[in-house]
């Protein structure tokens, strides 16, 4: 099996920027992406803040060249995946076995929910083009076709850990000698379905979210897409460039506690972090930064914090939840935060956890509150946990 998997390309779009450079600038300015709902047609406008990508569907269609009436999920996926592939700039790409492993949770739901209004009134009504790409797999297929990828194309959906699992899976495709190059990550767009779903669970903060704060009151939903380009040793040696880093560790464990709630002791997250450290051959003290799952819900942050305490006590690395900037982008979050983790290593930076004021009483640590430069960032742990107890941790390390 190939010993190392290198990261050579990045692409990202979220409420704080349409590309990598805009994200870095927003982080340094400490500028969050949340605002009143302006694009999603919902009764919750003005009541629940969300982190919308600033571009309209029309603008995204113009950028991507995808057909009019495309699902916003495929538009966001296309933008970020294309950026990642361009950034990797792999010559003679078609001489390699190329994969596209993409995750999402909503598929083309943004269109399906419009179809459904007409369909419910009369089952013979509703424009079929709005349900044609309902399936999660359709989003992946559209973008793979646009990128000209056909060797290995698949979609993963494990709720909020989806795109971390996509990156994990991509690395294994390379190590098992099934692929040489894989673009992996995920996308999700805001929909009424998810906004109302999370609202019924009463875990949406009516203010901007405060991850890992004692007085946190829930999450803000966001949207976006984030992708990495992963390559094998063989491809790396053929490239005339320095990789960003390697994916050194990964683990997927299940909390097996409840369909939506995390166990109080954070069993799944504990096992995921421990497993990823073991895979990377690292000790907890080797980790220089943790990109937290940190949704801002009382339950997640308490369980994740407890698990971190079990793994890291008494030496806590700097940590923060970048969801304080982007909101919770669900199936895209693992991919977007993987991009941030890689950028932390590349630029030796640590992102602040915005709006933090009071540490959680039962936890002996607190997140970073200002943008830090010139830090020795060699190993970054990124957590992604989801409904169904699906917990995944990734570790990125200097090459």
């Amino acid at each position, binding site marked *: *099996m190939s010993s190392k998997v290198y990261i050579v390309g990045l692409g990202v779009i979220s409420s704080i920027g349409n590309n990598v450079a805009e994200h870095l600038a927003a982080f340094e300015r400490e500028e969050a992406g949340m605002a009143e709902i302006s694009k999603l047609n*919902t*009764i*919750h406008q003005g009541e629940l803040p969300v982190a919308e990508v600033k571009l309209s569907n029309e603008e995204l269609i113009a950028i991507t060249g995808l057909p009019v009436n495309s699902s916003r999920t495929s538009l966001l996926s296309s933008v970020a995946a294309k950026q990642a592939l361009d950034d990797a700039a792999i010559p003679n790409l078609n001489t390699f076995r190329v994969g596209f492993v993409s995750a999402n*949770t909503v598929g083309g739901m943004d269109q*399906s*929910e419009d179809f*459904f*209004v007409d*369909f*419910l009134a009369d*089952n*013979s009504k509703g424009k*079929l083009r709005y*349900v*044609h790409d309902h*399936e*999660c*797999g*359709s989003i*992946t*297929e559209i973008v*793979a076709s646009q990128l000209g990828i*056909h*060797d*290995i*194309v*698949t*979609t*993963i*959906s*494990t*709720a909020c850990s989806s795109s971390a*699992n996509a990156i994990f*899976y991509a690395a*294994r*495709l390379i190590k*098992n000698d*099934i692929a040489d190059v894989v673009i992996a990550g995920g996308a999700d767009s805001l929909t*009424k*379905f998810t906004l*109302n*779903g999370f609202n*019924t*669970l009463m875990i949406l903060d009516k203010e901007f979210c405060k991850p890992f704060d004692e007085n946190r009151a829930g999450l803000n939903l966001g949207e976006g897409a984030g992708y990495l380009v992963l390559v094998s040793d063989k491809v790396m040696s053929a490239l005339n460039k320095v990789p960003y880093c390697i994916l050194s560790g990964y683990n997927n*464990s*299940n*909390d*097996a*506690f409840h*369909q*939506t709630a995390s166990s109080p002791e954070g*069993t*799944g997250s504990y*096992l995921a972090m421990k497993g990823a450290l073991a895979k990377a051959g690292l000790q907890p003290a080797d980790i220089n930064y943790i990109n937290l799952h940190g949704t801002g819900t009382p339950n997640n942050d308490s369980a994740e914090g407890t698990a971190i305490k079990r793994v890291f006590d008494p030496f806590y690395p700097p940590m923060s939840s970048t969801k304080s900037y982007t909101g919770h982008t669900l199936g895209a979050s693992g991919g977007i935060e993987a991009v941030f983790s890689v950028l932390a290593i590349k630029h030796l930076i640590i992102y602040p956890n915005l709006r933090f004021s009071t540490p959680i009483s039962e936890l002996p640590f607190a997140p970073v509150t200002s943008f830090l430069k010139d830090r020795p960032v060699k190993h970054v742990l990124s957590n992604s946990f*989801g*409904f*169904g*107890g*699906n917990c995944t941790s990734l570790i990125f390390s200097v090459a």
Partner: protein
Amino acid sequence: MKVYIRSAASISAQKSFKQAGFLEEVIEYTGTRLPVIEPDFKQYIDPKLIRRMSHVIKRGVAAASECLKEAGVDMPGAIITGTAFGCMEDTITFLTRIVEGNEEMLPPTAFIQSTHNTVAAQIALMLKCHAYNNTFVHKGVSFEHALLDAIMLLNEQEADNILVGGTEEMVDTSFKVLTRLGLYKRWPLSNLNLLQTVSAGTIGGEGAAFFLLSDKSDPNNLAELRALKVLFNPPNIVHSISTLLQENDLTAADIDLVVTGKNGDTRNDAVYKKVTTAIFPKQPIANYKHLCGEYPVANSFGLWLAANILKKGEVPEVVLERAASNLRPKRILLYNHYQNKYHSLMLLDAV
């Protein structure tokens, strides 16, 4: 490394679940949609939980439990599922409430259970299984990608006894929409005449099938999964199949039975005709979608069928298109494609 199927459990439109016989009594339906024969869920699931679970969850949990039981394994080393549409019943319920209630006064249960990973999650929850847990949602090869993940885990020596399943449920709404999209025939017919009624469209179906995979040889194993290939828009499928045979040092003559995913749709079946004419002009051929209907993970029923044919050394009459005398297959090629876009090839050997 070798990959073995230790056990298999299938809930389908036929009497495939916990049956002593092997498709001895074939169930005939008339229409364009095959239902599922529901097992007694109380044997597998706490009755308090049954009420809240949608059909796909109940079937997935029951099929997974039965699969483990048949292998005599309490705790799997990983749980991996494939589904294209996920939890349709709960998705439609929640969508309907959003529209009818204008986004107000919504109960959360349907949303909570609507995520695509719910079946794998509920199995983990029931077993208190903290191991690797993944869900693939890639159209007509969702199940095959779950299998590929399991094979890689075995190859990495990361886990053994990997539970892999394909689940799909058909609800009235999805059936109506898919009918409008032209997937199904426009008039009712007997499923037993489906493959002789080649015209536009097929019949819809649903089901749940689970398999336990191991790299350990055992006389009780059902079959060896010798090779799996998943292809997206292959330029020449005949060439792809020939290559697979060559890679495994086989010729067409080494294949005792070809099991295909014919479904009575003209364009769909033409692809199988081309392949069998070019590579397997004389081999015995079997088909299965007249028994279970067409759905994105229907090939999980195909794998259940193929594994049982190899184990039992018999081919049920109802699946045979082209027979041979004294047919006791030792090697099967299971070939399915989904809208001629995604193709899957599995080579299976008797153990």
